[in-house]
């Protein structure tokens, strides 16, 4: 601060829970001591991917020692529905089976052993029906979750016809398991007078509360949902924790005992939704110099059996099919396919990565075909001055930072020299090639369902000058609490050690939105700031009195109130406020201004602003096995004026590696029955430490304060994931270098060693 007093804001902060993590004292739901009489539960899953449920016989299961209850659809007192937006998802199947493993019964018992023994005795009678598993099958059978959503500007058909270079193709991206290290878990405690307390690992406690109320036919005030912290969420606990919370609640209601529902890793991977696989069919036109002229693309998402968030995810894929590039004439059609798989759900990026992968792959293919420099082609197509500043959904891009980011990153990554070195290396090798690539990211920030862009906070200050901070956001590791504490300390002038971030709870801040869409600190930060300002302004006259100074000269910093060279500890100010009968608690509330979107017209301003970044990746690929290594990564990412640069760097690095996993080694393999074969880390390979580049250079864009966002910052949770598209572009370059110029690389995503080796074979073929 200007006066030299310390504020934690914008400083290299440590993670608020870091020391609790490293000692093992940090508690997650499954770590809570079992309350007396606690029961656990086991889901009984359907044996087929699609069928008619003729009956569930639980009579033998109920006789198993230790089993207290076997619950089926008939036991649901309220609405047997857990779909968050569209009510198309039953908690327990009543008549139809829509995916293999869908819950048909819940066995509640004294131990997992008893529950498993009981589950084995539940007889599920199903008449199997043919299942739809892939997007191609869904297209063939006209199986959809929603009508198409179209973004149309200009006349793409005419522009395509005129284009000097025109080609068609398909882009395939795979699904991705969240693989949060902590699986789903809820502990439900019956409390007096028809009420329940839930400890739940969820990104969306308010929705869990609402859905449980709905299922139990209660009102929301009967339920309190508390989130201590999550062992990772990544979108996987935005909607889908509600199912398991509802199971625990229903079982607690039926047995009158505390009930914990915890999924082991295999169950979590088999039963919960994932990132949506996408299939895109496109027709693109470029001018001879590499300027994008027109794009006509159909984006099909595999939504699984129910809507969940699939519509919004498919929308966001459309909104990011431009990435940072101006598409003069464009038609983008998004359509979610209904298949007999678990319902796919939110995952960091929320469709954005799938959309962005399309245009980045198209540009890579264009450069492979023409031999033009990918850096120059990408730069040439960036949004620019009007009329080249309009997105396909008619939002104006007025703050494009990509040209600056590209220039700075080309220089700092030593791109030109390394590009020459890669070419020289490739000249001399038989069985190895290197690839170097630079790709940008432009990511829209806001929930595209506009009303969700709101948040609340509750600040409680005690007379001794210590405070508890509640806000609507949940902590899943992203450092939200760290940032909120910094904002709170900054506004109130309290020392961070005197402020405690409380568990997120629906009885502290009601009607919250999910901690999602990268919006956690943007939204909750403003609400926290406002709550703190209310209390601070109440303290101001008290402090002025103690300091014998005019109120408008009083400052609050570093645990003190200061004015005219005098100072007084804040605890004296709060004590005095208490004696003066001044309220020391306040709520804060925020909603994002000026955003809206008209889906029918495909027009609007869905995003408050855009986050930008770019990455340079260098890979080496073996033409003998398809194995590869990421040699070096340089990232320049725009987080505005960072609230906590150390935390933001962690989001950038972690997002990049997670994106790399999605695009390379993480492969969901379903068999013909619809059974996920890769349902544990034995077969589903997220990046390990050795996959991270030894040379990993991350820089946050300097002098980048963002107008009208909390303290000049920008959202950071999702955008960096898409920086990993640079790895795919680099791998494509390495594959291309195995063959003659002008040949398009045939490489689906994920780029597994097998996919890469066959792409190399195709490239080398005569």
């Amino acid at each position, binding site marked *: 601060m200007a006066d030299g007093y310390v504020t934690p804001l914008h400083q290299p902060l440590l993670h608020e829970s870091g020391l609790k993590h490293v000692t093992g004292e940090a508690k997650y739901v499954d770590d809570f001591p079992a309350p007396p009489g606690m029961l656990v539960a086991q889901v009984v899953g359907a044996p087929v991917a699609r069928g008619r449920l003729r009956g569930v016989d639980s009579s033998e299961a109920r006789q198993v020692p230790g089993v207290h209850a076997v619950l089926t659809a008939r036991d649901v007192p309220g609405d047997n529905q857990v779909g968050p937006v569209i009510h198309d998802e039953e908690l327990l199947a009543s008549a139809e089976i829509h995916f293999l493993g869908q819950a048909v019964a819940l066995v509640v018992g004294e131990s997992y052993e008893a529950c498993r023994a009981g589950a084995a005795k539940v007889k599920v009678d199903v008449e199997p029906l043919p299942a739809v598993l892939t997007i191609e099958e869904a297209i063939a059978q006209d199986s959809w979750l929603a009508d198409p959503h179209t973004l149309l500007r200009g006349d793409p058909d005419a522009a395509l016809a005129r284009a000097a270079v025109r080609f068609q193709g398909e882009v395939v991206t795979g699904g991705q398991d969240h693989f949060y290290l902590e699986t789903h878990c809820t502990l439900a405690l019956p409390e007096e007078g028809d009420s329940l307390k839930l400890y739940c690992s969820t990104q969306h406690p308010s929705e869990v509360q609402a859905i449980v109320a709905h299922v139990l036919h209660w009102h929301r005030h009967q339920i309190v949902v508390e989130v201590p912290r999550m062992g990772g969420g990544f979108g996987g606990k935005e909607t889908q924790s509600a199912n398991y919370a509802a199971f625990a609640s229903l079982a607690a209601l039926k047995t009158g005992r505390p009930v914990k529902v915890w999924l082991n890793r295999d169950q979590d991977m088999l039963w919960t939704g994932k990132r949506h696989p996408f299939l895109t069919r496109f027709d693109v036109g470029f001018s001879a110099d590499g300027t994008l002229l027109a794009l006509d693309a159909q984006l099909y998402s595999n939504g699984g059996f129910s809507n969940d968030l699939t519509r919004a995810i498919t929308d966001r894929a459309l909104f990011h099919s431009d990435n940072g590039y101006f598409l003069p004439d464009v038609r983008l059609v998004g359509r979610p396919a209904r298949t007999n798989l678990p319902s796919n759900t939110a995952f960091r990026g929320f469709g954005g990565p799938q959309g962005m992968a399309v245009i980045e792959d198209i540009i890579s293919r264009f450069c492979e075909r023409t031999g033009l420099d990918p850096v120059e082609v990408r730069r040439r197509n960036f949004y620019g001055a009007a009329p080249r500043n309009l997105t396909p959904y008619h939002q104006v891009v007025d703050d494009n930072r990509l040209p600056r980011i590209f220039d700075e990153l080309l220089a700092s990554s030593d791109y030109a020299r390394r590009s020459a070195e890669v070419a020289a290396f490739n000249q001399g090798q038989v*069985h190895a090639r290197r690839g170097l690539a630079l790709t940008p990211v432009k990511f829209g920030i806001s929930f595209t369902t506009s009303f969700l862009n709101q948040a609340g906070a509750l600040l409680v200050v005690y007379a001794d000058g210590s405070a508890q901070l509640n806000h609507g956001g949940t902590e899943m590791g992203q450092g939200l609490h760290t940032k909120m504490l910094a904002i709170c300390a900054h506004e109130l002038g309290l020392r961070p050690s005197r402020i405690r971030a409380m568990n997120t709870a629906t009885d502290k801040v009601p009607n919250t939105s999910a901690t999602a869409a990268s919006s956690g600190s943007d939204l909750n930060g403003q609400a926290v700031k406002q709550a703190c300002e209310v209390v601070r302004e109440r303290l101001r006259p008290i402090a002025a009195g103690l300091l014998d100074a005019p109120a408008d000269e009083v400052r609050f910093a570093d645990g003190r109130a200061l004015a005219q060279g005098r100072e007084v500890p804040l605890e004296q100010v709060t004590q005095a406020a208490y004696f003066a009968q001044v309220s020391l608690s306040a709520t804060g509330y925020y909603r994002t201004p000026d955003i809206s979107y008209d889906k029918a017209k495909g027009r609007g301003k869905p995003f408050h602003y855009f986050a930008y970044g770019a990455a340079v990746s260098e890979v080496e690929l073996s033409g003998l096995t398809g194995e590869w290594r990421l040699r070096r990564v340089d990232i320049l990412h725009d987080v505005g004026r960072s609230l906590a640069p150390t935390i933001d760097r962690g989001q950038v690095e972690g997002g990049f590696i997670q994106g790399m996993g999605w695009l390379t080694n993480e492969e969901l393999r379903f068999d013909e029955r619809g059974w996920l074969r890769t349902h544990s880390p034995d077969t589903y390979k997220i990046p390990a*430490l050795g996959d991270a580049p030894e040379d990993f250079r991350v820089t946050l864009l300097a002098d980048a304060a963002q107008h009208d966002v909390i303290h000049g910052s920008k959202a950071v949770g999702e955008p960096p994931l898409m920086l990993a598209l640079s790895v795919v572009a680099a791998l494509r370059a390495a594959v291309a270098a195995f063959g003659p110029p002008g040949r398009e690389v045939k490489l689906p995503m994920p780029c597994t060693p097998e996919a890469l080796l066959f792409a190399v074979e195709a490239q080398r073929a005569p």
Partner: protein
Amino acid sequence: MNSLRFNLNGAWVEETGVSPTTTLLRYLRDRRGLTGTKEGCAEGDCGACSVAVVEQGEDARPVWRAINACLVMLPMLQGKHVVTVEALRSPDGYHPVQLAMSKALGSQCGYCTPGIVMSLFEASYRTDLDAPWKLDDQLCGNLCRCTGYRPIREAAQAVAGSCPEDRFAAQLEASAPQGMALAYEGEGQRFTTPETFEALWDELDAHPDARFVNGGTDLSLEVTKRFALPPKLVSLEGLQALKRIAVVDGVVRVGAGVTISELESFSERRFPSLHRMTRYFAARQIKHRGTVGGNLGNASPIGDLPPALIALGATAVLRSRAGERRLPLEDFFVGYRKTALAPKELLAGVELPLVAPSARAVSYKVSKRRELDISAVAASFFVDVDAQGLVTAARLAFGGMAATPKRASTAERALVGQPWGQAAVEAAARAIAADFTPMSDHRGSAPYRLLVAANLLRGFFEETRHDRQPALRPGHAATVQALVEVAHG
């Protein structure tokens, strides 16, 4: 002795009545309230449950070893010292690895963190972390979904080999090895750890249906994944004779109880081919518990040691009360997960001839992920060439290509007697397709496996042009290092 006794966080604990297949992880969380140790997968693939135990290192020096609590059954800890994450912080303050992790922001969600802290705990007391890859190897068994690993690497670099002189160093000195002898029954299950062969044969006579277990990294999966309760287990961990590696008259005898990490350090200087296979064999936590006997005795078609040892010409040593018998290791595998072991017979170890300087020998492992993954294809090649340049012996052994670890006999025939050169290698590579009909699964399709198997032989030829038994180079991009040596950056 019908009680389980081990030292937990500095205090001896004794348990009776508990099921002997209770894993340490479930014991810590369910019975001791030590919930810092997490379950992330219950199969040794994520490392969130890592704890440290005292083991005997080289020269019988006690060392801290990180292991997966999810794969170790309580009787396997008999007489041992165990430390969990909760014990690291003392009234004097945090352990250096805790401070390093916090300072580097090595935790985000924190769920993998206790396991990483315990892997770093081992690293901090290690004195052999003399290459960057060893740090990666130390941590490859700890998955983190949040950080992207850069800060964890940074913390590891800060503490590795720092050897703090603290109470844990003192505990090492004070923890003299104790006998593991045990004959335990609980919850209707039996678990014995004989310390002599006599006691072992007696146990087998009395309980012919008992199953052998060594480190338990595979057998424990039946407990944690299939929820089985094996009724009778006989641990071989008490038999010191099985834990030795000895070189006698040009033959290396490796006991069945030798752990993979012990084999890895032994082979680093003496058997580059074997070392390359042990390096990407598994996570360090698994290598500390997994044994030579376990990996061979499993007879899995995707085990990594069988091809490496078959190519090196290993002999299996089988032992029973009647004495020892020997057979070529490849004949030990008689079918899918079936061995030549007779009832009440034990795989005591393997014998390996030293590799002649004239021989080319390299092992390869191709998997989707380099570290901590199961092979799509494992291959190990041994080719000896005489003074005239003619191939005198060829052993091309593969895993992942058939129902058993298997040699490519057609391809071998294409090499023997031929000049060791591009033409013979190409003919042999093409012949591999006649030797195998691999399956397609989630680890690789049949065409991929066949292509890789042939390419590995091609790469083997390239790689051994200058160095006949090459070690892995720093920064290698692939299991096969077929780079042309040119000046490059």
